[in-house]
């Protein structure tokens, strides 16, 4: 009994020392509030509080838009999805960012943010609203390019947005010319990834390269993909049996180290091997981490990677 007592007391003494040692008595000054954003009425954007025009400390949970923010010169202080940190396009800009989930209320407050950005489906919006001005964005409410313009309007960075969009149009036109000897506008692509026991196809607005290929570059999708994926939910889980019906000229497969071997059983089967695109060697394996998002920074790199992959597949 005595031994347990003494050990317990010792433990708690240590605890107490730790507790008292971590003081942060410095009273942090309120961030000098600069200009308030115009908060333009944009469909899918909801504003809570006074959104600053030049936020200094952004806590971002809307991971799809990290790249957009970075392109406009706003560096989030936090990230919520590992893929953000792993992105070859902008991961290094998040070097000093902390990983948080939207329910880590205390940590969020500790960041002392002047802006919180979050998806409309998040369940903690009510709490977040009370911590700092919050921008709530509904996913896919704006087109992937339009989103840049929208965010530009909110943060008074319209010029940067337009500049990027212009150079993007030029880059895309150039790439299309570059590839015109192997690809025409009718060449059909299918965008997919594999998870253990599942195959998913993506349309033109769910990342994985869909925006790049279908929208920017304007290539076609096989008819069944058009019907079942693009015209419906934008993504689609598929049975192996019919995968052949959904692949046209090229298949774009997203892989990364975590999913490399997934679907190996499919790839070893005749069903896969007998697909014309597979036989012609027109399966493009792209980096999942790069193609997951569809923001400007990712798009820039995706375009290069895509052009390279197509050229290699046609040698």
């Amino acid at each position: 009994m005595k031994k347990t007592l003494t050990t317990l007391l010792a433990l708690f003494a240590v605890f107490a020392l730790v507790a008292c040692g971590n003081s942060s008595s410095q009273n942090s000054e309120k961030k000098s509030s600069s200009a308030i954003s115009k908060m333009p009425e944009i469909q899918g954007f909801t504003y809570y509080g006074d959104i600053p025009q030049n936020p200094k400390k952004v806590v971002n949970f809307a991971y799809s838009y990290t790249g957009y923010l970075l392109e406009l010169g706003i560096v989030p202080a936090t990230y919520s999805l590992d893929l953000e940190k792993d992105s070859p396009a902008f991961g290094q800009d998040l070097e000093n960012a902390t990983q948080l989930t939207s329910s880590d209320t205390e940590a969020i407050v500790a960041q002392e943010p002047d802006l919180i950005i979050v998806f409309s489906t998040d369940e903690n919006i009510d709490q977040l609203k009370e911590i700092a001005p919050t921008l709530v964005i509904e996913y896919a409410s704006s087109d992937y390019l339009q989103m840049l313009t929208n965010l530009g309007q909110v943060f008074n960075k319209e010029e940067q947005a337009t500049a990027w969009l212009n150079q993007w149009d030029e880059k895309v036109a150039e790439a299309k010319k570059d590839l015109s000897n192997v690809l025409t506008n009718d060449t059909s692509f299918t965008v997919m990834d594999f998870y253990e026991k599942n195959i998913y196809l993506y349309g033109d607005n769910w990342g994985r390269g869909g925006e790049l290929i279908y929208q920017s570059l304007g290539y076609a999708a096989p008819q069944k993909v058009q019907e079942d994926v693009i015209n419906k939910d934008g993504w689609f889980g598929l049975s192996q049996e019919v995968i052949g019906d959904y692949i046209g000229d090229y298949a774009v497969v997203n892989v990364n180290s975590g999913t490399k071997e997934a679907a190996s059983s499919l790839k070893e089967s005749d069903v896969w091997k007998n697909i014309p695109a597979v036989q012609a060697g027109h399966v493009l394996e792209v980096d999942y981490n790069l193609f997951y998002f569809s923001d400007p920074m990712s798009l820039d790199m995706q375009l290069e990677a895509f052009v390279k992959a197509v050229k290699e597949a046609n040698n």
Partner: protein
Amino acid sequence: MYREAKLPSQKNKPNHIWLVFFTILFLFLIGWYLGLRFGAISYSHQDLIEVLRHPLRNSKLQDVIFDLRFPRTIAAILVGAGMAQAGAIMQGVTRNPIADPGLLGINAGAGLALILAQAFIGSMHYSLIILVCLLGSTVAALLIFTLSYRPRKGYNQLRLILAGAMIATLFSAIGQAVTLYFNLSTQVIGWQAGGLSQINWRMLSIVTPFILLGLLLAQLFAHQLTILSLDETISKALGQRTLAMTISLLAIVLLLSAASVAIVGTVSFIGLIIPHFIALFVGKDYRKLLPLAAFAGATFMLWVDLFSRIINPPTETPINAIISIIGLPCFLWLIRRGKNL
């Protein structure tokens, strides 16, 4: 050495067995036939016969039937049989109607092993995945055996079950922690949801020997199991070495369910419900119960797989969802019949 114990419930049921057998056989054959014919693509009767007659002629049809649907249906049969038998054996050994191979930590062990492997090795080829799962299940089961063994007192039902439940909870918690920490949710969820998609001949070749062996051994031990499932004092009085028998039977459970789980992921209910259904008709004579339960389990899985493929083609509905929807009412109905359990 002893006269065959004939349970009172059996004395009036000799004919039922054949009726049950033929009903299941009928359902089995239909289920298999439909499973081969329908799915994301529906083939006509003619097409199917053509392909079966000329198995080596290459065509898209042949690809789907032979590379995808055959291994898949065979896996359904094996896994259904294996899980149903494993459940029946567990119920007999523990003398409890709600015993399930999960209590031996099979699911939790395989799950944790898979998660750890994903975290540290990354993506794995399916053959490696199967091996990892088998290893995980075995380690969990061994751990449970060891923890519940007292040097001088031998095994005790209660300790075994408690150890099983605790290890399962612990592994499950660790698994979740690792998944969250390493952000593996998207990678492991497929396995956790369970399913027969993407099964090919190679996977079957790894797992089939285990299941067949287990089914065979189970049948050999069936009579012993019947005796064991009676009260402990009765079985001892009948001269049975209960300890050795318990361990052997549990080893068979491990064999059957680990192999099933490795190929299909976590699948619940089958081990729980099927044996009870069959026992309604056949009584608790395991020599008859085991093969029929296996047969019924196989049929059940065939149909469940069929449904998962035809409810919403070409998407496949997760198997566990279908089984839960069927299983829960069955379970409640079983409770109502409660007294005879």
